[in-house]
C-alpha cells in the first residue's frame, strides 16, 4: 500500500474534477491530487467532438476536446498531481481513499475531498423496455465512445429513444457517418435536450422527433431487427392500438443520466432522492464534513459552463475548509425545498444568512412563469421569468436576511404558471 498525504483529493478527472482541482490550487492548496479511472482527462469531453462548449463562459464556441484542453493545461501549470487509470474503490467518512492502479494499492489521506465522479447513463432496464435481448442496443454515450474515440461504427439503421442531449448529438453524428436515423422517440410532450440541439441536430438533418411516443418492444434474435413504438397517454402509459413497427439494426438509448454516488454512499454522504446526488450546503459541502461535491455527480447539468463555475466553488470551499478562512460557523441550518413546479433545488441546506445562489429545475415547461422563494409566510423573492423548461437549469441569487435565517423556516422555491 502506497501512502499519500494531500490537502485536497478530487475523485474524477472530468471537467468538474479539473475545475475543482485548478480552483483549489488557485486558492492556495499545496497538494492537490486528481484521481481518474480512465487513461485520459476531461471525462466525456474528448468524445464530444461537436462544438458548443464554453459559450457562456468564454464567449467562444469550443469543441469538447478544446474545452477540456484549457483546464488540463491549467491543471498542469498548477502542478496538480494526476493519477490516471486509477480506480477509487473505497472512500471513508474520515476522508481516506483507497485506490488501485497498475502500480499497486494507494491509501490517500486527504484534508478535504471533492466528489466529481460524474454520472452514468440509464439503461434499457432502467426504463423497463421489454422484448428480446439482441446485440445492437447501445446507450448513446457508449455509441459516442465507439464512434469518436475508437473509430468503430455501431450500426446502419438507427432508432433513438429519448431526446436527451447525447441522443440528439448522436443522431446528427450517425447521419454524418452515413447511417440512417429513422426517428428520435420521446415519451414526454417536449424534448428533454436543449432547444439548440433539437434544431441543429434533428431539424437541420430532417430527422423526425416523435413526441409522446416510446419504444414498447424490441425484436431480433441475434441483432436488433425491429422495434415497436407506441404513442403514450397523459400518464406516459402506451396507448393500445397505436403500435408501429420500425425496421432497424440499432437502438440507441438516451434515457437520462444518473449521478454516480456509490462512493458517496460508502462514506455515509446523505443523498437527495430528487437530484440523485449528495445534498449539499451553499459551499457545496455534503453532510460529511470535509467532503464536497460538484458536477454531474451532484446533479445533472445541461452545459459544461455552469458546471465549471460550480466546480470552482467546490474547489475553493475545499481549501477554505482546511484553512478555515471565510468559514464562519453557524449552528443553525435551514433547508431549501422544492415547491410547486420545481423538481429540485441545489443547495439543499444553508448555514448562514446573506447572499446565496440557488440552482433549480422546473418540473415541466411553463411560460411565462413567476419564480418565488418564501420562508414561512415571508416572501424573499418574486421574479418573473419569460419561460422555464426542465432542460434548462435556472440559476438565481437570493439574499437571506439574518432575521429570516434565525427563524429557521425552510426556504421553499416555487414556479407558478
Amino acid at each position, binding site marked *: *500500500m502506497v501512502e499519500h498525504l494531500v490537502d485536497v483529493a478530487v475523485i474524477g478527472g472530468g471537467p468538474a474534477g479539473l475545475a475543482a482541482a485548478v480552483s483549489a490550487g488557485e486558492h492556495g492548496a499545496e497538494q492537490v491530487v486528481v484521481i481518474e*479511472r480512465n487513461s485520459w482527462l476531461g471525462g466525456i469531453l474528448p468524445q464530444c467532438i461537436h462544438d458548443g462548449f464554453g459559450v457562456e463562459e468564454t464567449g467562444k464556441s469550443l469543441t469538447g476536446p478544446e474545452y477540456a484542453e484549457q483546464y488540463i493545461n491549467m491543471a498542469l501549470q498548477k502542478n496538480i498531481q494526476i493519477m490516471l*487509470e486509477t*480506480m477509487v*474503490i473505497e472512500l471513508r467518512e474520515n476522508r481516506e481513499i*483507497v485506490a*488501485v*492502479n*497498475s*502500480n*499497486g*494499492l494507494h491509501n490517500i489521506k486527504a484534508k478535504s475531498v471533492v466528489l466529481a465522479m460524474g454520472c*452514468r*447513463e440509464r*439503461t*434499457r*432496464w*432502467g426504463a*423497463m423496455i*421489454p*422484448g*428480446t*435481448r*439482441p*446485440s*445492437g442496443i447501445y*446507450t448513446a*454515450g*457508449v455509441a459516442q*465512445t*465507439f*464512434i469518436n*474515440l*475508437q*473509430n*468503430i*461504427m*455501431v*450500426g*446502419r439503421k438507427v432508432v433513438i429513444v429519448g431526446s436527451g442531449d447525447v441522443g440528439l448529438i448522436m443522431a446528427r453524428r450517425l447521419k454524418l*457517418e*452515413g447511417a440512417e436515423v429513422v426517428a428520435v422517440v420521446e415519451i414526454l410532450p417536449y424534448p428533454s435536450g436543449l432547444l439548440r440541439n433539437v434544431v441543429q441536430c434533428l431539424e437541420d438533418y430532417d430527422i423526425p422527433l416523435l413526441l409522446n411516443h416510446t419504444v*414498447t418492444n424490441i425484436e431480433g*434474435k*441475434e*441483432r436488433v431487427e425491429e422495434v415497436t413504438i407506441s404513442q403514450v397517454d397523459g400518464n406516459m402509459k402506451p396507448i393500445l392500438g397505436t403500435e408501429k413497427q420500425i425496421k432497424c*439494426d440499432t437502438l440507441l438509448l438516451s434515457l437520462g443520466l444518473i449521478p454516480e454516488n456509490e462512493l458517496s*454512499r460508502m462514506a455515509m454522504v446523505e443523498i437527495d432522492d430528487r437530484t440523485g446526488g449528495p445534498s449539499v450546503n451553499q459551499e457545496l459541502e455534503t453532510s460529511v464534513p470535509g467532503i464536497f461535491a460538484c458536477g454531474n455527480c451532484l446533479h445533472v447539468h445541461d452545459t459544461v459552463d455552469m458546471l465549471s463555475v460550480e466546480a470552482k466553488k467546490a474547489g475553493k470551499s475545499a481549501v477554505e475548509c482546511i484553512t478555515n478562512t471565510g468559514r464562519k460557523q453557524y449552528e443553525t441550518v435551514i433547508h431549501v425545498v422544492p415547491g410547486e413546479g420545481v423538481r429540485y433545488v441545489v443547495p439543499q441546506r444553508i448555514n448562514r444568512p446573506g447572499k446565496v445562489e440557488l440552482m433549480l429545475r422546473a418540473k415541466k415547461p411553463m411560460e411565462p412563469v413567476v419564480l418565488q422563494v418564501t420562508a414561512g409566510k415571508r416572501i424573499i423573492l418574486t421574479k418573473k421569468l419569460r419561460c422555464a423548461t426542465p432542460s434548462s437549469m435556472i440559476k438565481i441569487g437570493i439574499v437571506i436576511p439574518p432575521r429570516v435565517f434565525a427563524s429557521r423556516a425552510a426556504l421553499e422555491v416555487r414556479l407558478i404558471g
Partner: protein
Amino acid sequence: MKKFQVAIIGGGVIGSSIARELSRYDVSVVVFESGSDVASQASKANSGVIHSGINSPPYSLKARLCVEGNRMFQSLAGELGVPVKWVGKFVVAGNEDEIAELEHLKRVGESNGVPGLEILDEAGVKKKEKNISCRGALWVPTAGITSPYQLTIALAENAAENNVKFLLETKVIGLKKQAQKFFVNTTKGGFLADVVVNAAGVFCRDIVAMLEEPDFNVYPCRGEYLVLDKSYSWLVRSMVYPVPPKHTGVLGIHITPTIEGNILLGPSAEFINEDEDTRTTREAMISLLKHAKEMVPVVPDNAVINAYSGIRSKLASAENGGWADFRIEESRNTPGLINILGIESPGLTAAPAIAKEAIGIIAGLIVLKEKGSFKSNRARVNRFSGLLETERAKMIEKDSKWGRVVCRCEQVTEREVTDALSNPLGARTLSSVKYRCRAGMGRCQGGFCTPHIVRIMKDNFGMDVIDIKLKSPNSTLFTGRVREVREHG
C-alpha cells in the same frame, strides 16, 4: 472424417456434466454446442437454486436425482471452485389453507429423505427474516444457491482440460445410424461416433426426430426474471417461495438471493410456441413485482438492473398439469442413442446425479477405463473483488493488469478479462467474458466496461471489430470502421 467414441449434443449443464464425468475415462468425447459458448440456453437462465427435493412426488426420478444431486453438490463445487451457499428457503403461507399445504410439502419432503424440515409460525419466520410477510412458513435448510453459468462453464472447462473436445457454434443438423456407427452431420462438417448423448435441452425432440419418430412432445414454458441492484441485497438472505400453485408443474414466483449478491424475482410461467423465444414482456415484469411484494412488501420498483428469461423443457402440456418426470434412457429403437429428456427444474440440482446415471448407461455400451491423468480440480479463478488487500497488492506486483479496473460496478480488472478470453473452450464473445468474470453484470450494464473489453479483444487478441459478438454467431456488435468502405455480399 473425425471419429469420437461419444458425441454429446448440447453444452448445457447436463451435456457439460456428462462430458466432465466421461473425461475420467479413456474415451474420446466431443461436445457439439450450437451457441457461441456453453451455457447458452436454460443453464444460464434459471434461478440457480440447489433444490432440496421437497417438490417432487416420492419415487419419481426427479425426487431421487434431486436429493442425490443436492448431496453431491458441495464436493463437486469444491473441486471446480464454483461458489455455493446453503442459504435455505422459506415456503411461505399467506392463509390457513396454505398452512395445510405446508404440512403436505413437509411430508413429501420427509419421504424423499430431505432433512431438517420445520414449520415456523409468523414470529418464527420474522425472527430469521424480518422482511417476509406471511402467516407461517416451511423452513428448508438444505436448499442452497449457486451460479448456474459458472458451474456449467467450470464443468466444461474442466472437461476440456481433461481432453474432451468442445466444438462451439457447431449445430447438429442431421443424424444417421449405419453399421453400428452414428454419422453426425453438423454446420461444421460430419463426424462419426459410437454413442450419441442427446442433451439438447428444449431441442431434445428435434434430435430424436433425426433418427426415429419421437414418442413424446416438448412443451416449452418460459420463465422471466428481474434482477435487482446489489444495494438491495439486504431484502432477504434466504430464498422466499410461495406455496406452489396447483397443477402448473412450476414452483411459483419466488425471491432468490444470487451468489453474487443480487436479488432475483421470478420466474413467471408461460407456455410458448417457439423453443427459442427468450424475450421479456411487460406483463411478466409487472406480475413479478406484484407477486414478490405479496411475500416481501419492501421489494422496490425502481431497482431493476436487468431482465432475462429461460425456457423450461417440459414433457407435459399445460392441459395435462405441466408435470412429467425426467427421462434418462437409451432409445429402444436406436441403440447407442442416449436420451436425456425433459430436464426442467430441478435439472441444475440433479445434473451431477443425471451425469452418473448417464455414465451407467454408457458403461454398458463401451468400455470405460479410468485414466490416470484425470485432473478433478480446476485451477482457482481469482477475482480481484474477492481478494484481501494484501493479496491484491501481491497480484498487482506479479502482473500490473491486476491493478487496472475495467468494470466499475463489479470491480473486474483487465487481467480477469484477459483470463476469461483465454478460456480453454475458445469462447470469445462479450457474454463469455461477462459470465466468466462478471464484467458488464452490474448496474451500468456494460456502459463502462464494453469499450474496454472491445479494446482488449482488438489489441491483445487480434480480433477484427466486425468479428466481435455479443453472445451468438450472428450477434455482431459493429458494422465496421467509421468511414470504412466494405463490400457487402
